[in-house]
Structure formats: structure tokens, C-alpha cells
């Protein structure tokens, strides 16, 4: 037997063996992975309302509360700091002496999330209730979602942060992408997101969340009666964070 025959036989067997094993695994796993699909949908559609007329310029309660609640990594370096919620200052390009406006930015939990569309492993996805979440157990860290997000709302865990203020909640390993989860863990238990709670307690009560499917919720009433804006509505991503006074 010469080298060529050896290679052919060996390669063929290896290929056939591995593919059989994986085919078997794949066929059986289709049943195993079905868990959870019979869970009834909540019928909710969460949205956030930001009242910029109430928001105080010097207050950063929401940012701090988010960091404490979700163990968001912070290195005091703008290259790698993550901010699930952030306050920015805006001024008009046209009149230089104009007033500066302070705006709260967070993940918009779009109804048509571009980040979920491009995720190659479906780690980023939209839950039934409209919250866009990263499954950190699955994320491979390709960072395509950060490219796709038009709102600059997604960040990456570039390095480990040993700081761990809230031991009840996980932190992230380096190498996965993340963004605001609208504190889904708290909403599921019927509590308010950390930023909303902090804003009501120590801030000015500018933030609120609610069910957009429920016509009697505050957010539904406000969005249907008052002049509200969303960021870059023209992109067609259907954001669910509404602003009063933007």
C-alpha cells in the first residue's frame, strides 16, 4: 500500500466517523433543544419612556445604579468602558451659543433589531416581550452586532473587571458583547429596572417602563397623546425607547 492509498483510507474513515458521530448528536439534539418552546408568551411588549424635561443635568443616578446592578465592566478608560445606559450632551450644529441638552441613551430594544439579524450564533435575539438580549453563554465575540447597531448602544468586554458589586447577578467574561437588558431579570419578577428605580428614588423620576401592548399603561397613553420622539426613527428599526422633549 502506498502513501496515497493510506491517506485515502485514513482520511475517508476519519471523515465518515466524525460525521456519523456529529450527525447522531445533531439528530438527537433537535429533541433535547426543544425545551422551553411550550412556555406561553407573556403578551407584553416592554418599552421605556424618557422624560427629558424632568431629567436633571447633573444627576447620574441611573448610570450608577445600572453599574451596581449589572456589574458592568469599568476600567476608567474610554476605549474599553462599557455603559449600558449613558448620559450625553447635545448641542445644535447650527447655533454655537445654543443651549446644551442632556440626553439619556440606552439600547433601544428595537422591534427589528439589526444586531440580532447579524448574529451568527443567534446569541443576540429578541425575546417574546420585545427585549433584545445577548446570551453570554453562546456569544463567540465576533463583534458583528456592534458594527450593525446604528445607535452605538452595544459594547464589548475587552478585559476582565474584578470589581463585582452585585454578587446576585453574573458579570461577564472577556470576549463577549453586551448591551442593556432593560433589567429583564427584574421585569420578569415584577420589579422595575434598576435605572428606573434609582431615577424615581434619588433622581427626578424621568424614567419609566411599561407595556406597549397594554392600552391603559402610562407609556401607551403618553405615546399616543403627547409628542414623543425616538432616535433615528427613519432607520426603520422601530426603537422602543420614547423621548419627551428631545
Amino acid at each position, binding site marked *: 500500500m502506498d502513501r496515497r492509498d493510506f491517506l485515502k483510507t485514513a482520511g475517508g474513515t476519519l471523515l465518515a466517523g466524525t460525521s456519523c458521530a456529529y450527525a447522531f448528536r445533531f439528530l438527537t*439534539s433537535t429533541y433535547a433543544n426543544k425545551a422551553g418552546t411550550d412556555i406561553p408568551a407573556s403578551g407584553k411588549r416592554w418599552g421605556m419612556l424618557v422624560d427629558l424635561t424632568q431629567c436633571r443635568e447633573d444627576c447620574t443616578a441611573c*448610570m450608577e445604579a445600572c453599574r451596581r446592578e449589572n456589574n458592568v465592566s469599568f476600567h476608567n478608560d*474610554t*476605549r*474599553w*468602558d*462599557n*455603559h449600558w445606559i*449613558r*448620559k*450625553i*450632551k*447635545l*448641542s*445644535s*450644529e*447650527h447655533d454655537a451659543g445654543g443651549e*446644551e441638552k442632556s*440626553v439619556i*441613551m440606552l439600547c433601544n430594544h428595537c422591534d427589528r433589531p*439589526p444586531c440580532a*439579524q*447579524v*448574529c*451568527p*450564533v*443567534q*446569541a443576540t435575539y429578541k425575546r417574546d416581550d420585545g427585549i433584545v438580549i445577548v446570551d453570554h453563554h*453562546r*456569544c*463567540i*465575540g*465576533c*463583534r*458583528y452586532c*456592534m*458594527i*450593525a*447597531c*446604528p*445607535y*452605538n448602544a452595544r*459594547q*464589548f*468586554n*475587552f*478585559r*476582565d473587571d474584578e470589581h463585582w458589586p452585585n454578587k446576585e447577578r453574573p458579570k461577564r*467574561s*472577556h*470576549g*463577549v*458583547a453586551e448591551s442593556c437588558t432593560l433589567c429583564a431579570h427584574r421585569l420578569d419578577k415584577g420589579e422595575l429596572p434598576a435605572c428606573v428605580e434609582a431615577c424615581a428614588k434619588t433622581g427626578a423620576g424621568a424614567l419609566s417602563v411599561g407595556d406597549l401592548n397594554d392600552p391603559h399603561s402610562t407609556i401607551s397613553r403618553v405615546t399616543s397623546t403627547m409628542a414623543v420622539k425616538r*432616535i*433615528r426613527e427613519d*432607520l426603520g428599526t422601530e426603537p422602543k425607547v420614547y423621548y419627551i422633549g428631545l
Partner: protein
Amino acid sequence: MNITFDRIEGTSLQYRMLLLVFAALAAAGGIATYVVCQKGIYITGMTNRVPWGLQIVMAVYYIGLSAGSLVISGLYGVFGKIEYKPFARMAVYVAMLFLIAGLMSILTDQGRLDRVFVEPFVHFNLQSMFSINPLLYNGHILICIIYLWALFTEKKTLTKVIATLAFGWAFCVHTGTGAIFGFGARMLYESPLLPASFVAAAMASGTALMILMIVGLFKITNRHVDDELIIWLGRFLAICTLVVMYFLAVENAYRAYVVELRGAALYYLFGGFHSILFWFGLMIVGLGVPLFILFRDRTGKQIRWIVVASILVVFGVLCERYVIVLPGLTHPPELFPGMEITASPLVEGTASYSVSFAEVLQALGVFGVIGFLFVWGLKVFKLLPNEARISGPPGPAV
């Protein structure tokens, strides 16, 4: 025409030194990748605003370089130009290696390398270009292997079929690679022209690389190649280069014309380091000068000058890949049209990116791996023809 293929002896000192150099590069890249995986990718030049860097640039560059086989298999397998048969084995082997290099660059760039070999196969997302492309790349590698087998065993019908398949598949590969960016949401990415211009640039760089490899290898190993073959490839290179330039011109003219994109166009054309790369690296050195050389009668028919032009095109397309990937990221997304963000805890304006040492090592490492495989392959497989001549007794096509 009777073409015999042969291995090289591979016993000279230079050959062993070359292998050693490539192995050393691969080892350095491996170490760099290990360190990056352990510490987190903050030791590369990437940041929250510029999440893709040199590795992605190199990945799309490598994928583009594999297009040499597209040209050769098109000429020989699809259009039946028997005189290009001598290069077919080499071209397909090189294409396979560059596709592997592209995949390696993408894989080693991931944040969680431990999951890369599991999750993408278990949870597939057909809406994502990042899911579709590895499928295309892997498929192309597979096609290349079958193609090589058909060529080695001189199976004529199979060669014809697989060459046609490879030709079409390669188009999909380069289109798909372009679509990673072209279908993206960044202002300087979003362009339906990008996938098409990717194909053109891939063919230009692939042809240029083929010219370099043919001329170089045949010279080093004292084999004869007819000048006409190279000159014809040079002409083809000239056309590809012209098409690339045309696409770039249309794309930038569009951006500069549409009011909405004018700011982005200005940033692209006159906004910093990438603009220097664009104008001098790509437009003048990478495309303009080669075009001049190739279209001028006196220089376009001299092998020496064609080689120079090829080197410039290979360099120019590397610049092109850089100015596709990075300016699109450093340019800020328009969050509030008409407004300016004056303060933020994140970098909201124009971001900066500088290549880090670790990334360079990683890129060199990938190059080392495929360089090693290529040089070694010359000794193991019968890749090189004894000679490449146009004239000879006429034989059946393919």
C-alpha cells in the same frame, strides 16, 4: 500537449531556511493568539468604537488573494485555454491555502475562541453574513480539494465540471465577503456596489499574485515559461485594475453627491491616515502606476515591468481592504442629525485605531502557516509543471 508535473527536491539550504522562517512566524502568531485569548482582546488595537481591526482586514485580503484560482480555472477549465493548464494545480492549491488563511484570521479574531468550533455549527443564523460566509469558504475549500484531486488524477470530465463549479462558487465567495460590509449599517459600508467591487479587487489581487508566483517560482526552479502567457495575464490584470478603479470612483462620487453622505465622503477622502492610504497607497501606487505600466506598449510587454505592476497591485489591494474596513468604523454613526454630541462617557465622535504589536504578530502567524504549507506542498505534491509553453502539438481542449 504533454505536460508533466513534478515535485521540487527541497534539499537546499535556502529551502530549509524558508521553511524555518515560516514556522517561526507561525509559532509567533500562535503565541500572540494565545496571549490575546487569555488576556482579552484589549491588547489589540481594537476598542468599543472600532471593534474590527487588522485581523478582519487581513481576512478579507486573504480571501481576495485566493481569486487567482478563479482566473486560472476560468481560463483553463471553463473556457478551455489549454495553455494555462500548467498553472492550474498551483493556482488551486494556493487558493485553498488562502481560504484557510482567511478563515484562520477570522477565527483567531473572535473573543471566545473556545466556542468558535461549536456554537456556529449548532446555532446557525442564515440571516447573518457571518454565518453564510464560513459556509461559502468551507465549501470553496472542499471544492478546491476535489478540484486538486481531479487535476492530479487527470480526470477530464470531472475537471471541467469542478472548474465550472469553482468559478461560480468563487464569485459567491467574494460577493459574500463584500456583503459583510456592503450590507452593513455604517455610513461608509452601506453600498450595493461593494460586493461587486470586492469581486473585481479580488480578481485583480489574485491575478497579480499568480503572476508573481509563476514568474518567481519558475525562475527559482529554473523552469521555462513563455512570456506570452504572462503578458496575457498582465493584460487581464490591467482590465481588473481598471474595473476596481471604476467601482471606487462611482462609489465615492455617489457618496460625495448625495447630501446625506457628503460628510462621510469628505471624511473618507480627506479625513486622516486612511485618506493617505486611499490616495497614495491605493489610487496612485496601487492602481494608477500599474495601469500606466500595463497599458503602455513598451512596459506592458516586459516581464520585469509586469512583475513590478503586480507587486504594486498586491500592495494596493491590501490598502483597499484597509480603507474599506476601518474608515467605516472610525467614522461616527449619525445619532442625532443636525446635532452635535459634546460630552459622553463613550467615544461618540470620530474614533481612532492604531495597529498593535499583537495583531501584527497574529497576522504574520497566519501568513507563516500558509507559507509553510505552500513551500512544503511544493515538495510533497506534484504542483509545478516542467515547463509552460503555448506552442506544441494541438491537443483536445481540457
